[in-house]
């Protein structure tokens, strides 16, 4: 299968791979997907006092498109408010990475990962 240049770039040079301290109240962690389906994304956000996402990290088990989708969204959500980050749609991700139809679920998973991380942060902070 031929991948777009952007997918290859994110796969070979993934942005923001790593982990933030799950125990930190300022960190929200989203874990989505399932090993049996071949995709698991863990996306973490760290929210600053100004309410902006100051850091984002990910780890992904999945195909190149899944890795690229999660890498891309960590770039996009940094510096955004939670509402702005939550507004990111999978179609934007799919379009940016030129994902073929069979890989659209990777972008859906990345959108879900953002929402899950935000929900975890809000739960911790009763926001």
């Amino acid at each position, binding site marked *: 299968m031929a991948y777009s240049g952007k997918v290859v770039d994110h*796969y070979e040079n993934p942005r923001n*791979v790593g982990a933030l301290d799950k125990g930190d109240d300022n960190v929200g962690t989203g874990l989505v997907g*399932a*090993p049996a*389906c*071949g995709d698991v994304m863990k996306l973490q956000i760290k929210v600053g006092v100004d309410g902006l996402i100051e850091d984002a990290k990910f*780890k992904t*088990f*999945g195909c190149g498109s899944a890795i690229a989708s999660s890498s891309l969204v960590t770039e996009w959500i940094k510096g955004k408010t939670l509402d702005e980050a939550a507004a990111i749609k999978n179609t934007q991700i799919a379009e940016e990475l030129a994902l073929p139809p069979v890989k659209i679920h990777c972008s859906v998973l990345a959108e879900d990962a953002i929402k899950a991380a935000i929900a975890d942060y809000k739960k911790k902070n009763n926001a």
Partner: protein
Amino acid sequence: MDKQVSEAMNARNRTNIKVPIYLDYQATTPMDQRVLDRMLPYFIEKFGNPHSRSHAYGWEAEEAVETARAEVAAIIGADPREVIFTSGATESNNLAIKGVAHFFKDRKNHVVTVSTEHKCVLDSCRHLEQEGFAVTYLPVGTNGLIDLDVLKAAITDQTSIVSVMAVNNEIGVIQPIAEIGAICRERGVFFHTDAAQAVGKIPLDVEAMKIDLMSISGHKIYGPKGVGALFVRRRKPRVRLEALFNGGGQERGMRSGTLPTPLCVGIGAACAIAKAEMPTEAERIRRLGDRLLTGIRAELPEVFLNGDVERRIPGNLNLSFAYVEGESLLMGIKDIAVSSGSACTSASLEPSYVLRAIGVGEELAHTSIRFGIGRFTTESEIDFAVKTIREHVARLRSMSPLWEMAQEGIDIKSIKWNEH
């Protein structure tokens, strides 16, 4: 795509070894130069129709075809008259299974096969089911092999044919062919084996193994694509089958159509070389396979070999790299041409049905790569593959949330996953 191809070609020119390294010998094999040399005269110079009886063009083509037929027969211990040429193993499998089932349909309506057979066998059986036949799909154990007692219990008075592959294309395990042959002969049921992955790899003898029909492929044994053969037993017992299509009645009426002389010569030459070189080749490939597995496991924990450890051909290693997804690994090891057990490479999201059948969990099935070693694989290619695999598995594990959890001692099965 053109850009990717040209980049790959440039990479070939830059390094001493040609990349991508070809480790997909179960998918197909390059032709042996010696095979091509024997084929070439039959394209232009000796182009006759082997069925033409009235002139020398036909006679020389017929002679070449009959020599090839004898060479194919020799590698499986058959009589040349029992070998018919087809377009490949897919046609041979269709002809064997549907042909026998259809011929005996007035008396028998049951077929037995195995859940891990090649798609063309399973699809032929599904087609028979739609026509009203009953089909039993035998399960396999975690080693990929059938249970002979389960086979015995599955055969009924209504069974016309049992079809069990000799060597599995995905995991390389060898089914107990001689034992199956003995059971089928005793029960008066025809035994067909798809030997596309077995010919030239393991010794086969249709008499000793009591095989009644056997499918052979040209391009899996360093011969040309587009040609195969079907062994059809002539006596004790004589196998009768209904042809798939109508025509001039060539190949004892079982397979009409003018024989492609160069292709027949090619599969014959490939069989002759394979027969002569099998013992030394098998030993050499075994050493290379051991080198690959030992090299990978020396630095990477949690690498699993799928299928029986002992009862396998040495040229096939199907490995699961836990916590790494197969397609992303393929993308990383693009300098190695292999196949993935992960179906993410196809349109469906289901992992390999063969790996599922042997009880490999879905999460591990998604992490599987099939390495196929063959006649032209070198030690330096294996060393390059080991180095590449080690690097990329380590990198992908470092970015895998499942690997992180495993290192933290979290059982990933204990997590309530949201399956999509």
